[in-house]
């Protein structure tokens, strides 16, 4: 009997757990196709060793990319990073990327380790980023990555999926980030808990892999298990000459059963900012316009790719960052940095007054660099703004697109990018 029509997530999980059909909410034991880790892998190594394990299952399907506290701040972090490198080398992982290569989510997609149709796991909440290329990419804890290394298996609950139907075209000055802030505003921070956002609709093919990345990345901000784009010609073009593993793309079946449908007209959107404290506090940028900004962060796995830097550079080229603002630019990877250096965008940003920092998480999680002073406001292209996220609970974070970030860096106050676009 043919299985009932299924969503992308159901099809990928069924294959990875060796079952024909799955019941939503059921817990399956799955064998991921690819697993990656970052600095917090020290706790996965602790778990692996405490289990008495000696051999990593499928080392060829494992990689590490250090990103959270690189270059190391102190000897504890340095020793942790050396330990992770030694572990990855001893167990013959497929790849090890040292600090400076970039943010793991970005690096694993950019270098083709995350492939369409694959079940991917990593011990990080923004693992869903891999949905940009049609993978079911799921975040776990660190100890269970140690468990996975030791056993090759992981328990996962079969999620429902929310169909996100995208239609229309983004207006000038409005970007994928604004679209995602709108989705988060509508769903709320746990609005998609135990669900996968499956992005489709007439506008989906018009979005680049980078834009899809922004959307899937912030699926974490509605509590989703994942976010995934239906693979198409854009996906195929991106994977060409990049895929590290053979893959089979997975599309949803016609008539698949979704828990909910969320329809969005991209053309009706205006730039948004998420006000401090919670990611679902999106308001039109006009409502926050004029708010004094002390630091602007163009970085993170959400919005620091070549296209994001180009958007910011187009606004800042030949102009100067407001003297009361610190602008920090952190390309999502070294490859992005090299491309932006070659096309002149990096020079434009630096000449405008940006501080360029090594590729990695940097300011985003308040672990490493760019910590805010009491009472300061940071306007950020990253994904989280809960109290204390950037290392100081007495500071505030507003989330926005790279265009809004650049426009506001110019004026020193929250600014609608449409007012400064040439």
């Amino acid at each position, binding site marked *: 009997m043919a299985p009932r029509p299924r969503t992308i997530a159901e099809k990928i999980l069924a294959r990875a757990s060796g079952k024909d059909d799955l019941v939503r909410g059921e817990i399956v034991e799955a064998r991921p196709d690819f697993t990656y880790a970052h600095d917090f892998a020290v706790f996965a190594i602790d778990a692996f060793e405490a289990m008495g394990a000696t051999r990593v299952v499928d080392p060829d399907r494992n990689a590490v990319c250090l990103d959270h506290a690189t270059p190391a701040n102190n000897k504890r972090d340095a020793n942790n990073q050396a330990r992770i490198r030694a572990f990855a080398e001893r167990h013959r992982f497929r790849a090890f990327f040292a600090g400076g290569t970039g943010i793991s989510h970005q690096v694993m997609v950019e270098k083709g380790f995350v492939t369409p149709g694959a079940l991917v796991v990593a011990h*990080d*909440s923004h693992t869903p980023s891999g949905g940009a290329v049609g993978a079911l990419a799921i975040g776990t804890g660190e100890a269970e990555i*140690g468990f996975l290394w030791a056993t090759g298996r992981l328990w996962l609950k079969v999620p429902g999926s929310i169909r996100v139907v995208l239609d229309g075209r983004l207006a000038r000055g409005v970007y994928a980030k604004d679209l995602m802030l709108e989705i988060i505003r509508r769903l709320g921070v746990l609005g998609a808990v135990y669900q996968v956002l499956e992005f489709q609709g007439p506008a989906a093919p018009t979005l680049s892999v980078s834009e899809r990345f922004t959307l899937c990345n912030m699926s974490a901000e509605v509590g989703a298990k994942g976010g995934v784009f239906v693979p198409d010609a854009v996906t195929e073009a991106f994977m060409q000459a990049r895929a590290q593993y053979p893959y089979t793309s997975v599309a949803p079946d016609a008539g698949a059963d979704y828990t909910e449908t969320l329809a969005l007209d991209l053309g009706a959107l205006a730039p948004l900012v998420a006000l401090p404290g919670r990611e679902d506090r999106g308001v039109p940028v006009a409502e926050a316009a004029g708010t004094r900004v002390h630091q602007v962060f163009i970085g993170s796995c959400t919005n620091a790719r070549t296209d994001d830097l180009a958007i910011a550079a187009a606004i800042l080229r030949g102009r100067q960052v407001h003297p009361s603002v610190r602008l920090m630019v952190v390309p999502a990877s070294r490859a992005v940095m090299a491309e932006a250096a070659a096309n002149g965008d990096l020079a434009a940003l630096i000449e405008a007054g940006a501080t360029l920092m090594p590729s990695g998480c940097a300011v985003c999680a308040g672990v490493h660099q760019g910590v805010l002073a009491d009472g300061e406001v940071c306007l950020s292209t990253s994904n989280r703004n809960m109290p204390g996220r950037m290392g100081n609970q007495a500071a505030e974070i507003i989330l926005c697109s790279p265009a809004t970030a650049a426009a506001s860096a110019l004026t020193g106050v929250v600014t609608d990018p449409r007012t400064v676009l040439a």
Partner: protein
Amino acid sequence: MSGSVLRGTAAVFGDFVAADVILPARFAFLPTAEAVPHAMAELAPDANARLRAHPILVGGNAFGYGSGREATARVIKAAGVKAVIGGPFARMFFRNAINNGVLVIDCPALIAAGIADGDAVTIDLDACTAVTASGCFAIAPTPPIIRSILAAGSIVDYGRALLAARA
């Protein structure tokens, strides 16, 4: 946890307490014992002491949302928490707590009915109930894999037994 019944007094926390608030990222690399004094310290002056004083943590809507860093679960466990109830809870918080041997139960009705610090809570996994002075609340059955991990103590203990059995 062993057996199916867990009893204790509650420490009650509100809605939208993010993982980054339970333990800010800058403390996440610390050895767990050193991180415990920082747990929830930014939420309120007495939050750390309240966390440590009771084995049952009653967390409001979205408690633990955001970051999936496991240090959040490790400090809650090290602070003496045996079970977290209320919610609904974020999925990575849920996984990490279970994997560290801390039971997590979605039961928003228990909060809605009224509960205060120091109140007794009894969770019965076989009967699928949570009982407080305000009433008896139905809870979802706990799947066998989760019961096995909790019975073993943690996913590390569970994994150790699994590997030993295979050897």
